């Protein structure tokens, strides 16, 4: 038997959120996401949560599970102690139960222009990128935009203009890209009031990232690049 204590909030019924308990027998290898589906299908069809790929690729199912922000589909019930407490991501408005409104999160992502900006004189055919140049951005590529880092960052709670770990990590990914021509503009943008220097180096983002990325390091690199104008 395992007990799920799930954060419930229905805007039509409740003013304040409450926790609801569900008990069931998990099978071997059952993930939290499968547990939630089990509840949805057998115990309570009003439960709302997001998911899509169920294999840690799409980033839809990030939530706060027993003390840590993680992907529900990447976490097995077995490794956790019952009761398992599940909350939605923090620092974002809750639409219903475990579903949050990710608009601020994605707005910050768009603000850093997450696409290549052409160089002043683009090549005739295509940009050639050597293996070495490609390796430079290896560490910053794999973000799946799950929002775990945003939810775990205490600065995001206080300053809704703060770009957030995900956006700053992405900014470095483009600054370091040999095909990108917008480094100067990007550095100027991330050094605004609510940019890199707002980071308090709390390390939560790198602790929770399900893709083992290191936004803290990316932010430190951006800071140094900005200070020494090396980009």
């Amino acid at each position, binding site marked *: 038997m395992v007990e799920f204590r799930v954060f419930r909030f229905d805007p039509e019924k409740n003013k304040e959120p409450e926790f609801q308990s569900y008990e069931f027998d998990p099978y071997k290898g059952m993930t939290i996401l499968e547990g939630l589906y089990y509840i949805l299908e057998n115990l309570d069809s009003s439960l709302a949560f997001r998911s899509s790929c169920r294999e840690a690729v799409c980033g839809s199912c990030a939530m706060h599970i027993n003390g840590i922000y993680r992907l529900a589909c990447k976490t097995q019930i077995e490794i956790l102690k019952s009761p398992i407490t599940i*909350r939605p991501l*923090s620092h974002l*408005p809750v639409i219903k139960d475990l579903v949050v409104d990710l608009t601020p999160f994605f707005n910050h992502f768009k603000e850093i222009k997450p696409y290549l900006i052409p160089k002043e004189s683009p090549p005739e055919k295509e940009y050639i990128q050597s293996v070495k140049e490609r390796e430079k951005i290896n560490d910053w590529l794999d973000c799946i935009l799950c929002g775990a880092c945003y939810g*775990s960052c*205490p600065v995001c709670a206080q300053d809704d203009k703060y770009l957030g770990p995900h956006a700053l990590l992405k900014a470095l990914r483009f600054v370091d890209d040999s095909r990108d021509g917008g480094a100067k503009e990007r550095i100027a943008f991330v050094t605004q009031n609510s940019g890199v220097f707002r980071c*308090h*180096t709390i390390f939560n983002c790198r*602790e929770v990232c399900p893709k083992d990325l290191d936004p803290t390091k990316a932010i430190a690199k951006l800071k140094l690049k900005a200070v020494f104008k090396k980009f």
Partner: protein
Amino acid sequence: MYEKKSGIIKYYFDEWGLNKNIGTFSWLLHRLTGMILALYLFAHIIVVSSGLWGPESFNTWLKVVQTPLTHFLEIFLLACIALHLLNGLRIILTDLLFVTKQHKAIFWVAGAIFVLFMIVTLSVFLPRVFSH
């Protein structure tokens, strides 16, 4: 839609409740010691500025603060300074050398240095507390 609204004190408790790890702990400690040091600065300036009214006034004020209790608070103050300073160095190290992977190890090294520092501090200041 539901948005959690919490006052400044509850905000710290909430963040700690949801992210119980070394990073959050050192950030909270840094905040707390920072605020204590800022408050101390005011007290310090008030006492020292009594010198503006001549040596007698300075001496009276100094006598006021030479009690067992203030000596005891001095130990507390030094602890705050050490914690704030060591954590500050830890952050500077991260920013300059990108040692994010080793941040937990660095935290424990800083903790060990703090313990050593406090042993020395106590051996110097505890006799003072009891010398009155």
